[in-house]
């Protein structure tokens, strides 16, 4: 057990968006709450808090996970990527730029989670087609866009990445 850890308080070390962070969390603190309240990364949004809406989706060791369904203490030693980690030096990632160009968001509440899911999808399958994109998006709820522009943005990102290859 890491020093400073009791059965109720856990001193954890994790790498968030390529930066090593150390933080002490309560047993019951979820990863999403730790990111938002303790590490100040409020880009990760909380919607339903029971794993259905997908707004809190982050990457844990490169794989999508619901930030509300994982305890912060479980992330000890993990590499976490949040929406803040997608853009380097204030420049939007190609996926984010595609969302801008295609008007892939309205209120933007669900967008951070969707961006993380599509980041995983495009890393696994840079040539993802519309079916694969829709299947990945089925794990997210969006109440504004009707999804059409989200799909269009993801397809535009695929095109953009292909152009760079």
């Amino acid at each position: 057990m890491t020093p400073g850890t009791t059965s109720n308080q856990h001193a954890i070390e994790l790498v968030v968006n390529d930066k090593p962070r150390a933080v002490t969390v309560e047993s019951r603190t979820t990863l999403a709450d730790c990111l938002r309240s303790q590490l100040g990364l409020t880009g990760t949004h909380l919607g339903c808090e029971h794993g259905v809406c997908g707004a809190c989706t982050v990457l844990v060791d490169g794989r999508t996970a619901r930030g509300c369904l994982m305890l912060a203490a479980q992330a000890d030693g993990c590499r976490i990527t949040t929406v803040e980690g997608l853009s380097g030096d204030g420049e939007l990632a190609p996926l984010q730029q595609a969302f801008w160009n295609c008007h892939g968001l309205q209120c933007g509440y669900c967008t951070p989670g969707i961006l993380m899911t599509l980041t995983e999808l495009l890393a696994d399958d840079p040539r993802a087609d519309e079916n694969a994109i829709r299947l990945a998006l089925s794990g997210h709820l969006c109440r504004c866009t009707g999804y059409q522009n989200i799909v269009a943005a993801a397809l535009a990102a695929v095109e953009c990445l292909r152009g760079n290859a």
Partner: protein
Amino acid sequence: MKPSPFVLHTPRSVAQALDLLAGSDNARVLAGGQSLMPMLNMRLAAPDVLVDINRIEALAYIREEQGEIAIGAMTRQRDVEFSALVADRLPLMKEAILQVGHRQTRNRGTLGGSLCHLDPSAEMPSVMMAMDATLHVQSARGHRTLSMAQFAEGMMTTALAPDEILTGVRIRPWASAHGWCFVEFARRHGDFAVVSAAAMVELDRQGLIAHASLTLGGLAATPLRNPAAEQALIGRSDEAGFDQAAALVQQCDALDDPAFPSWYRRRLATRLLRRAIGSAFQRANARGANA
């Protein structure tokens, strides 16, 4: 909402986990968290102690042992999905796992977690029932094995004692020429199914059904094999025979709620089972022709 306070333990071995469970009152085991975490967040569950078994590497494996496929309880649903061994030897399980939640939940959700949560419409308990899996259970007191019928006692209720952990399952694959099909109806892809149907068939040399396994999920509190319908399929290869077998589902008791009344579940189960039998038979035929 947020979970009520609890003490969290993170054992590294099964023995440590079992000691923690034996020494705790009101403890729960935390596997992939895709069912228990929502219950904690909504305070439908309020354990004093949580034993997180995610760091027990010995519980995550998929391997062949003496002709059976052994799968550890902490094997991620994602790893079942991408396992070549599962795709080759347990194609029913492969087809079913793709209908479990979403990529984002399968990355963390586990086989054992799904079995222990035992939602009536969950896919993995149905697959275990369909394939007569053996479930391995351990406590500080010892080890025992259960069939899925023994394990699934009732609505979201398993035969596990408070100090026991499900460590893994063993499944005997059917012959390579068998046919299989897992279908379900959900209101949206990835949602809980209302009803699901699993069918497996093996044909004799004349192309008639020699063995069948038919299982319905979401119809009753636990997955339901239908021995009468299985028996009715023996010696058949005709559409009328498939219709008659599927129609026997009409005699089952079914869950009843305002959204999905029992008459609706029975009708859905009959249609899905008919579809599953037809697809399983076609696949067995195609595989037999290639053999």
